[in-house]
């Protein structure tokens, strides 16, 4: 049986014994929170599971637990540590006895309270908030009706129409481009879309493209593009029709 691997399940700690020791020595775990008796019980339980008494384990455990107890005892009187260290053994025993007596009295007092709670267990009474005292009146400051009216008038006024000036998206009418393309195509049978629109803003280009789609829908033009992102070529449908007719008839 290896003492260091003793599994502990305490209120303040769960894990192997050596981890507990490590944490305590690193000051990461407050020893005053640790129930040392719980460790002893865990050890004894493990010991009882064995048929033979493991004296080596017992010895190791005693040394470790004694060290732990001493640490804990010292930790409980941190500010008086120096003071206690100066005491003669007999005085220290006196001090210890005094503290034990104090704790013992409190234990007895606790036992008395437990008895009392048991004997007074059938007490039923109405529970509620503390007796109601009249609440202090909240006095308002003197009010001026004219001032109130003024404030309400401010609230009642129609808010100004929000300005859209900062929103620069202004669309030129689609018809403008429709007319422009028609005019161009009257003069030439084919035009290059990108070329014609060079120098226009992004929004204008977008509207121009809409105009293009409009014309295509009306059957006025044909659109072709050799490959994605290649130049878009626009031609009059009558020209196109002539070509297709030529091809078909050939």
């Amino acid at each position, binding site marked *: 049986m290896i003492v260091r691997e003793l599994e502990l399940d305490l209120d303040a700690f769960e894990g192997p014994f050596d981890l507990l020791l490590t944490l305590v020595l690193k000051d990461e775990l407050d020893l005053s929170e640790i129930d040392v008796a719980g460790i002893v019980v865990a050890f004894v339980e493990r010991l009882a599971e064995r048929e033979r008494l493991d004296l080596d384990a017992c010895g190791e455990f005693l040394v470790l637990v004694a060290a732990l107890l001493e640490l804990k005892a010292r930790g409980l009187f941190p500010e008086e540590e120096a003071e206690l260290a100066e005491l003669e053994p007999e005085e220290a025993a006196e001090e210890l006895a*005094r503290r034990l007596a104090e*704790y013992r009295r409190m234990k007895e007092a*606790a036992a*008395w*309270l437990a008895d009392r709670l048991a004997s007074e267990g*059938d007490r039923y009474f109405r*529970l509620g908030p503390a007796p109601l005292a009249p609440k202090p009146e909240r006095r308002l400051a003197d009010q001026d009706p004219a001032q109130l009216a003024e404030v309400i008038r401010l609230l009642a006024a129609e808010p100004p129409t929000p300005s859209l000036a900062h929103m620069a998206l202004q669309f030129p009418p689609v018809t403008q481009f429709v007319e422009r393309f028609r005019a161009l195509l009257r003069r030439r049978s084919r035009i290059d879309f990108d070329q014609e629109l060079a120098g226009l803003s992004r929004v204008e280009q977008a509207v121009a493209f809409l105009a293009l789609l409009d014309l295509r829908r009306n059957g006025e033009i044909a659109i072709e593009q050799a490959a994605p992102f290649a130049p878009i070529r626009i031609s009059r449908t009558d020209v196109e029709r002539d070509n297709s007719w030529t091809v078909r008839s050939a």
Partner: protein
Amino acid sequence: MDRPLRLISTNPVDQLARTVEALLVVAAAPLAVEELAEATQDDPERIQTALSLLSDRYREGRSGIVLEKVAGGWAFRAAREAGEACGRLFEKPVQRGLSHAALETLAIVAYLGPCTRPDIARIRGVAADSAVAGLVERGLIAEAGRDDGAGGAIRYKTTPLFERVFGLESLSQLPRLDDLGGDVDTIRERLHEIAEKRPA
């Protein structure tokens, strides 16, 4: 002719007792004699007389409601014989029992309070944080200022509810600590006995 007749028909203290009775039935916490005197605008001594009248009327075995002196005041509670029935319908203020840690902490606060968590930990030898938090939650102890000095720890004291639950008129009804357990001498003797028995 009217005056003597009225004196015979209504005893003024009896009338006062009815008013006190009414105040006590409305109250959710014990009422002190001074509070009753203030509400009735009457003399504290006459209030005492009215209370003793009522105590006789509302006592165990005679009434389902019992008037008792508790937590520094007077309050109605259910008669003990009705406890079982009450338990079927209502929860007790301390329904679940108190743990050892809670009882020890409660005892320390009751006897030495107002005291801080470090005070309690020093006597019990283990941290008292969760026990204190539990007792505060149950309303048996409450904060009572802070220790002197900057960043002083919070002090705790028992509440009127504590006295009511344990049926105490006041904290002075707690038994004297000297009457409880062994005193320093007996413990010292025991320590010496153990030391002597130890093999050299």
